[in-house]
C-alpha cells in the first residue's frame, strides 16, 4: 500500500512538473505545423515541399519574422499513410499548439487529415493534393496547386491542339490521383471529339505492364495518357520501348520525377505533361526563388511542389501577419480567403472553392532528361 502511494505521488509530481514547464516556456515563436510524406516511395514529393517551405521560412525570419517573432516550422512524417497523417495532425495541434498547417502532400492522406482539420477549424494549406473534394464545404482548407480535373482538361486540350484524334489510356484504379485524372481526361476527350481507342488498368504496386501495353499497342493510338507517378511511368516507358510501342505519352504533375527513376533518358522526349511550375519561368519572383533554392540546397527546385510549397508558406505567413498577435484560427482563415499575393508559381487568389486561380505549365524533356518548357495553358 505504502509503495503504491509513493509511486503515484512521484507520477503526479512528474506530470505536474512537465505541464508546468510547458507553461513556463514563453510563446516567443510562431509555430506552424508541416505534414508531409518524408519517407517511403513517394518521399521525393514531401521532401520537395519541405525544402520550399523551409526556404521561405528562413527568408521570412531573416526579414524579421511575423510581428517581430520568429516563425518555427515543425515537421511530421506521414510515410504516405493516412493513419500517420492523422496522428501527425493530432500531435501538432494538441501537443505543439500550432497556429496553422502546411500539408499534407498526398491526396489520399490530405483527405483524411482535412476531416480533422475542419473539426478544429484550423487553417490548412496543401501545396500538392489535387483532388476536387478536398476543399468542398471546408472553409478552412486551401491549396496552392491546381486540381486534377483542371490538369486533365488542360492536357486533353493540349492534345487537341496537337491534332491528336485517337488516344489510349492506362490508369491505376487503386489510387485517387490516377482515377480522378482518368475520369476528367476521358470526359474532356468526349467534349473535344477525341476518341479513346483503348483503356487498360494496372493494379497498385504492380511492376509488369507489358500485357496492358501490348493491348494498347494493338489499338494503335496516337498518344497514351498516363496518370501515374514517376516511378511507374519510368517502368511503362521502358517496357513500351521494349515491345516496340512507339507513341506519345501524356501525363500530369505527378509524373514529373520520372527523370530520376528512368535509366534510358532518351525515351523522355516522347513525354509531355502538365506541371505547377517551371524553373525556366521568366517572372522575377520565379528567378529569385530558383537562385535562392540553388544556393541553399545546391540543386535546382526540379520538383514543382517546392514552388507550390514555398507559395503555401507565403500565403499562410501573409495571413498570419494579418491575424497577429493572437493568431486565432478564424482570423487566419479569413485572411487566407482574401489573399492576393504574387507567389513564385504565379499570382495567387482563391476562388469560392478555395482553389487557386493560376495557370498550368506544359512541359516535356530533352534527350538528356532536362525539362523543357513548352507553353502555358491558361484556363
Amino acid at each position, binding site marked *: 500500500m505504502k509503495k503504491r502511494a509513493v509511486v503515484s505521488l512521484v507520477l503526479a509530481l512528474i506530470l505536474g512538473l512537465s505541464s508546468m514547464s510547458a507553461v513556463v516556456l514563453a510563446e516567443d515563436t510562431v509555430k506552424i505545423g508541416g505534414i508531409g510524406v518524408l519517407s517511403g*516511395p513517394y518521399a521525393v514529393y514531401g521532401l520537395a515541399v519541405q525544402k520550399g517551405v523551409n526556404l521561405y521560412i528562413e527568408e521570412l525570419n531573416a526579414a524579421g519574422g511575423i510581428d517581430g517573432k520568429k516563425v518555427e516550422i515543425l515537421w511530421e512524417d506521414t510515410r504516405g499513410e493516412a493513419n500517420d497523417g492523422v496522428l501527425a495532425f493530432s500531435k501538432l495541434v494538441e501537443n505543439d499548439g500550432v497556429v496553422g498547417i502546411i500539408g499534407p502532400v498526398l491526396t489520399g492522406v490530405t483527405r483524411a487529415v482535412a476531416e480533422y482539420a475542419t473539426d478544429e477549424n484550423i487553417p490548412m494549406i496543401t501545396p500538392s493534393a489535387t483532388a476536387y473534394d478536398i476543399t468542398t464545404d471546408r472553409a478552412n482548407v486551401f491549396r496552392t496547386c491546381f486540381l486534377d480535373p483542371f490538369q486533365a482538361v488542360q492536357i486533353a486540350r493540349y492534345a487537341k491542339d496537337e491534332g491528336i484524334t485517337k488516344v489510349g489510356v492506362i490508369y491505376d484504379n487503386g489510387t485517387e490521383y490516377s482515377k480522378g485524372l482518368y475520369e476528367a481526361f476521358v470526359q474532356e476527350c468526349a467534349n473535344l471529339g477525341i476518341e479513346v481507342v483503348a483503356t487498360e488498368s494496372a*493494379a497498385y504496386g504492380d511492376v509488369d505492364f*507489358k500485357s496492358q501495353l501490348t493491348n494498347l499497342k*494493338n489499338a494503335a493510338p496516337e498518344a497514351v495518357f498516363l496518370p501515374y507517378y514517376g*516511378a511507374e511511368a519510368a517502368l511503362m516507358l521502358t517496357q513500351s520501348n521494349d515491345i516496340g510501342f512507339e507513341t506519345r505519352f501524356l501525363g500530369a504533375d505527378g509524373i514529373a520525377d520520372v527523370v530520376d527513376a528512368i535509366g534510358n533518358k532518351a525515351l523522355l522526349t516522347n513525354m509531355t505533361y502538365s506541371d505547377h511550375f517551371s524553373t525556366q519561368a521568366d517572372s522575377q519572383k520565379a528567378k529569385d526563388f530558383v537562385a535562392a533554392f540553388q544556393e541553399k540546397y545546391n540543386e535546382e527546385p526540379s520538383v514543382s511542389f517546392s514552388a507550390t510549397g514555398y507559395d503555401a508558406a507565403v500565403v499562410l505567413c501573409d495571413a498570419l501577419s494579418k491575424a497577429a498577435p493572437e493568431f486565432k484560427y478564424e482570423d487566419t482563415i479569413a485572411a487566407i480567403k482574401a489573399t492576393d499575393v504574387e507567389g513564385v508559381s504565379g499570382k495567387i487568389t482563391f476562388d469560392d472553392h478555395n482553389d487557386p486561380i493560376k495557370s498550368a505549365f506544359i512541359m516535356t524533356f530533352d534527350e538528356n532528361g532536362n525539362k523543357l518548357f513548352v507553353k502555358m495553358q491558361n484556363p
Partner: protein
Amino acid sequence: MTLFLNQLINGLHVGSIYALIALGYTMVYGIVRLINFAHGDILMVGAYTAVILTTMLGLPFPVVVILVILMCVLFGVVIERVAYKPLRSSPRISSLITAIGVSMLLQNLALLIFSPTPKPYPISFNIKPLTIGGLQIGFTTVLTIAVSALLMVLLQILVAKSRAGKSMRAVSEDYDAAQLMGINVNTTITFTFAIGCALAGIGSILYGLAYPTVSPTLGSLPGLKAFIAAVLGGIGIIPGAMLGGLIMGLAESLTKAYISSQLSDAVVYGILIVVLLFKPSGLLGRRMREKV
C-alpha cells in the same frame, strides 16, 4: 492471333524470372528443409550492387555481371553460415523465424544505406525489338527466356551428372545417411546456397533489365511469387520450380491481358489453392510415405 502470342511471350518472360528465383527456394528446401524467405531479398542485393558498380564505379557490363553474381553468392553463403547453420539441429520453426528476420534485416539495411527513393536500374540495352516469325519481340524478353532456359538445362545436368549434384541429391534424400557415406554435408549445403544465390544474381540482372527501378523492397513481391511457384510445382523438386514459375508467369500475364489486371494476383493464388487441394505435394511432387 499475334496479340495472343505476344501476351504468351510476355507470360514466358515474367515466368522465366520467377522460375530462376523459385529454383533457389526449392533447392534450399530440398536440402535443409528450410524456406529461405530472405532469398527474394538477394534479388534486391544484386540490383543495388549493379547500381553501385555501374553508376559509381563505371565498370563495364560483363564485369558487373560477374561481380553481381559473386556478391549474391557471398551474401547467401555468409547468411547460411551465420544465421542458418547454428540452427540446423533446432526445431524448424526457429530457422523459419530467422529467415524472416534476415529478410527484414536486408530490407532495412538497404533502406538505411540507400534511402527509400527508387533509383533507376543503370543497365539497359537500346536494341530494337527483334522480329521472329512475324512477331515483334523485345530484346530483353528474348534474352531473359533464352538465358533462363539455358541455366535450367545446365542446372539439371549439374544435379544429375556431376559429383556435386550427386552429393546434393544424397543430402536431400537422407541427411544422416549421406554423412555416413562420407559426403561433406556442410560443403554440400553451402554449395547449394551458392548455386541458388548465383541464379538469383542472374535473375536480378534480368529483372532489372525488365523492371528498371530499384528500391529496398524490390525483392519481396517477386520472392513471394517465386516461393508460391516453387510450392505449385512441388517444393524440393527442381523441374517443379521451373514449371511452377512458368505457369505463374503465364497465368499472370494472360489474366492481365484478357480478364482484368486487378484479378491477376487473385487468379494466380487461386490456381495455387486449387492445385494444392488436389495434389498437396505440388504438380510434380511425390507423396512422401513414411515407411514403418
